[in-house]
């Protein structure tokens, strides 16, 4: 693509929505609730697995202020899901996890709805629950979906070369076992919204989400209405991180509004949000890595098991991504990986920033560093020798999509680490006055696909209207793209203005109404800048061309952009072309471990990313820093506790998110701009990448500081202390 001199691309323009967000003027979904609306309160199952023997709503229906109590029988088509429609809107027969919903109380006030919800009498017959993914695969395990006859949702093998032979010939073979836990999105704004039926008989849902048109599709299917009769609008979105990809309450708002023909509102408490919406998948990874004396990684074997929870959500895709990245970003000739997604009676798991990549590479990156140590080689050197290059074959036996920048990203990271952290130099004693404080540095790489994978029909559509007299005066860009806080709307506007050669102020955006704006696809998979941006770019060019030719003072063009096609993975060998674009990252992390308390402080982070082209540098850096906050939580703090299917940490008092004081005092974002062949002005995505290498980089830094390896995420003080005590025998920790 042509990249002439630009004036808006790369500029750190301020976010137009920032002022409203800090002053409180921005209207989030809960701010749309108005007097006179009916209020909804859900009745949750609060048990992991049970048959509904009887459901008596009469007492609730007779309670003061109650307009209706909706149950499964009121739902026209009682199933939804992003991929498989296997989740009931309201359960009629069986409940499969604690956050399953059995009834929806509609009342004049929130208090009345809450009071009446307590009067809904459900008689359950508890069923045996399976709450461990491995146990769920055992013969005779209780079935989460009895009709399927199995708890196995997906098995995907990836086979390349001959691992048996490679292991036999390897000079070093190491085994590893890793586990990762759930992670909660913890967006600032818990789920909320309103719905009503408008004068055109359309059901309108105003809420927050990540993909207008997909929400619309699922809601229309549930209500058995044509999609045009369902309008989804997004208010200001208070964070998403993948957590708003699945329907949470949007469809229930629609159901109540449609049934009662009155405006309705619902707002979840934090603890409702915590138990009811999907989480990041816990993974159990067992693997074996082999290398030659010369530092060539020759074989990887892995078993990758994801606890998908009670419903399918996006487990199948997340598990494929994790299976693909079980060997990291290294070209390894012999690979045998088996990925499994498993149903359990735990909270469903789905999309969360990184989408399987952080879990897989927590294991892979630690294994690479351990291999280097076993070979007596510098971990960076081992990476250098094996890392993906242009033309490298993926585990799926196809060459990587063009624009492979893993090596320059790593080299830059090492350079910065040498200069800023004195990486590679012998360390003088850490903190002389406090021998229990030990410092260490860890380096790790990361890879994550940009955009949807495995044969998905990727597209993004944008429409551009141009107006003016002699001169082009203004442009209206229509694209149904969710700004989940990442700043997508400004990026798209910058691209439009740049491409049209007009000022930012001359471009207005229509983005938040499924009835007005065309389908941009999801604000997920780090894809909106590349996909939505490219659609806007191409539509702007097309409109501009028409404008020049037109007699009238108006022109319009709509473009649907398709990136290079991907293919499904072969079910026997995993062969295929999984993705059209990857993002590459490398990080160097310095930590200080308190060997008396097990606390780990991250002192400095260097986070290097190839973003292709930074459309707005400030936003790229914001993504890196914000994502690192989530990564700090993931690596060290956030310990989502579930026992027998019950979430024990539904409050932020025990589910510990990082505070400002937990953030590293120094973050150095380093942005490389090695153009992507498909992205607008060469841009690719960055939003997920900082989460991928961070946890293994921290693990390597802890090892560097103390000599112990942690293999469970999060690396809490308890785990660090336990590992130190195990190393030192029982006498003293430290």
């Amino acid at each position, binding site marked *: 693509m042509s990249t002439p001199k630009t004036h808006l691309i790369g500029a750190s323009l301020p976010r137009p929505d920032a002022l409203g967000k800090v002053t409180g003027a921005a209207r989030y979904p809960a701010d749309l609730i108005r007097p006179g609306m009916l209020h909804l309160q859900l009745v949750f199952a609060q048990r992991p697995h049970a048959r509904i023997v009887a459901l008596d709503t009469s007492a609730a229906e007779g309670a003061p202020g109650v307009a209706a109590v909706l149950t499964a029988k009121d739902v026209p088509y009682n199933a939804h899901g992003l991929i498989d429609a296997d989740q009931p809107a309201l359960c009629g027969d069986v409940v499969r996890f604690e956050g399953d919903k059995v009834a929806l109380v509609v009342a004049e006030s929130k208090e009345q709805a809450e009071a009446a919800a307590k009067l809904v009498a459900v008689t359950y017959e508890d069923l045996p629950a399976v709450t461990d993914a491995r146990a769920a695969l055992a013969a005779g395990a209780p079935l989460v979906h009895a009709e399927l006859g199995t708890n196995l949702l997906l098995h995907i093998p990836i086979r390349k070369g001959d691992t048996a032979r490679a292991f036999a010939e390897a000079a070093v073979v190491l085994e590893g076992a890793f586990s990762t836990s759930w992670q909660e999105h913890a967006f600032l704004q818990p789920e909320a919204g309103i719905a009503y039926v408008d004068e055109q008989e359309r059901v309108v849902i105003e809420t927050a989400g990540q993909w207008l048109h997909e929400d619309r599709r699922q809601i229309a299917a549930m209500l058995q209405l044509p999609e045009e009769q369902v309008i989804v609008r997004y208010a200001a979105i208070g964070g998403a991180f993948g957590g708003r990809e699945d329907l949470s309450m949007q469809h229930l708002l629609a159901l109540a509004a449609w049934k009662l023909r009155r405006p309705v509102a619902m707002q979840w408490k934090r603890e409702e949000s915590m138990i009811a919406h999907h989480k990041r998948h816990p993974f159990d990874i067992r693997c074996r890595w082999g290398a030659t004396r010369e530092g060539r990684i020759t074989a990887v074997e892995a078993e990758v098991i994801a606890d998908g929870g009670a419903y399918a959500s996006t487990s199948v895709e997340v598990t494929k991504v994790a299976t693909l990245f079980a060997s990291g970003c290294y070209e390894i000739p012999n690979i045998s990986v088996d990925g499994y997604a498993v149903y359990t009676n735990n909270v469903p798991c789905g999309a969360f920033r990184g989408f399987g990549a952080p879990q897989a590479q927590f294991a892979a990156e630690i294994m690479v560093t351990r291999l280097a140590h076993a070979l007596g080689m510098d971990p960076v050197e081992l990476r250098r020798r094996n890392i993906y290059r242009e033309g490298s074959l993926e585990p799926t036996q196809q060459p990587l999509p063009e624009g492979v920048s893993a090596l320059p990203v790593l080299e830059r990271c090492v350079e910065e680490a040498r200069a800023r952290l004195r990486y590679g130099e012998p360390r003088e004693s850490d903190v002389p006055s406090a021998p229990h404080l030990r410092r260490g540095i860890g380096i790790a790489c990361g890879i994550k696909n940009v955009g949807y994978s495995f044969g998905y029909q990727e597209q993004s559509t944008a429409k551009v209207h141009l107006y003016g007299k002699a001169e082009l005066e203004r442009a209206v860009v229509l694209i149904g793209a969710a700004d989940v806080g990442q700043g997508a709307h400004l990026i798209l506007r910058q691209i439009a203005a740049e491409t049209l050669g007009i000022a930012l102020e001359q471009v207005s955006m229509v983005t938040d109404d499924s009835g007005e704006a065309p389908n941009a696809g999801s604000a997920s998979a780090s894809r909106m800048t590349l996909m939505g941006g490219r659609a806007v770019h191409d539509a702007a060019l097309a409109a501009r061309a028409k404008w020049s030719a037109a007699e009238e003072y108006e022109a319009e063009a709509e473009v649907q952009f398709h990136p290079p096609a991907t293919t499904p993975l072969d079910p026997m060998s995993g062969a295929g072309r999984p993705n059209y674009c990857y993002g590459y990252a490398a990080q160097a992390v310095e930590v200080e471990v308190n060997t*008396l308390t097990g606390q780990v402080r991250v002192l400095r982070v260097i986070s290097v990313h190839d973003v292709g082209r930074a459309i707005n540098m400030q936003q790229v850096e914001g993504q890196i820093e914000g994502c690192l906050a989530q990564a700090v939580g993931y690596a*060290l703090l956030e310990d989502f*506790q579930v026992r027998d299917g*019950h979430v024990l940490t539904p409050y932020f*008092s025990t589910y510990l998110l990082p*505070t400002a004081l*937990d953030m590293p005092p120094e973050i150095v974002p380093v942005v490389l701009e090695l153009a992507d062949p498909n992205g607008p002005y060469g841009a690719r995505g960055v939003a997920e990448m900082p989460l991928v290498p961070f946890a293994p980089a921290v693990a390597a830094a802890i090892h560097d500081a103390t000599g112990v390896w942690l293999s469970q995420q999060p690396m809490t003080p*308890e785990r660090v*202390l336990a590992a130190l005590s195990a190393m030192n025998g029982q006498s003293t920790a*430290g």
Partner: protein
Amino acid sequence: MKAFDHVTAASTREAVELLSSAAPDGARLIAGGTDLLTLMKADLIAPPRLIDLKPASELRYLRFDDAGALHIGALTTLADLERHPEVAQRLPVLPQSVRDAATPQLRALATVGGNLLQRPRCWYYRGDALCWLKGGSACFARDGQNKYHAILDHSPCVAVHPSDLAPALLALDAELVIHGPGGARVLPVESFFAAPTDQERVEYRLAADEVLAEITVPRQPEGARGAYLKVMDRQAWAFALVSAAAQVALRDGRIEHVRLVLGGVANVPQRIRAVEDLLTGQELTPKLAEQAAERAVAGAKPLAHNAYKVPLARELARRALLAATGLMV
């Protein structure tokens, strides 16, 4: 949360009257509300009436008397305590203990009285489960998820006391002044806290019609110094995994007076007398501090997920003793 009515009490006396005229379980005092309201929102308690104590401004004071004792009104906020220059100078263990409690916003609301009366943070207690402490038959933490729980087994319940202030007050031999319908009584803070029993499933001993009016910290032995150390999972805004408060006075280089209290290890803060006996009359050396710390955790019986607390408690005990003696900063 259920609806309730709200009345105000302008004085201690009025509060006692309102409490004693209410039906059993009919009313609760509210001070800062930072714990009470979370319990109400989770439907763990549903008092039909709240008696707001905040208008009783006579209960908000910090004052040293001529004898050198500190009087802390129950409505004093944690922030008041944290910022009082004279307290910081004479009883530094107090501001140290509240400095890392909760957040600045919470400390501005949270009162000293409410802090001592806050309920456990055990996740089974705060959740829906009807565990033993809430009147059920079993403690779910004992064989469940118990990484934050007790390593000393003193009760069917193994929850730990969340207060940071309480260990410090124990180390200072503080006393409580409690007003009830029959008048006032004074009680050492150590007897106020007690592990829950079958009859009294609560961590303190205060009747439903009593008001905690004052915490009195007696004059400390000449030259006494204190230290409070707290370890949290993150850098701020978390409850103590383990904490240690020490108060030590030396005479001619030997320990004349010592208190060592551990938090986060049992239902209520634990004063470790065995360590005090060991140290009194001795010269504190790093070696002796180590022995003392060893003794501090001698009776520990960790549960499945909290064995890490034993070395943690040992180290904190050692460091708190050294810090209070000035051997370590």
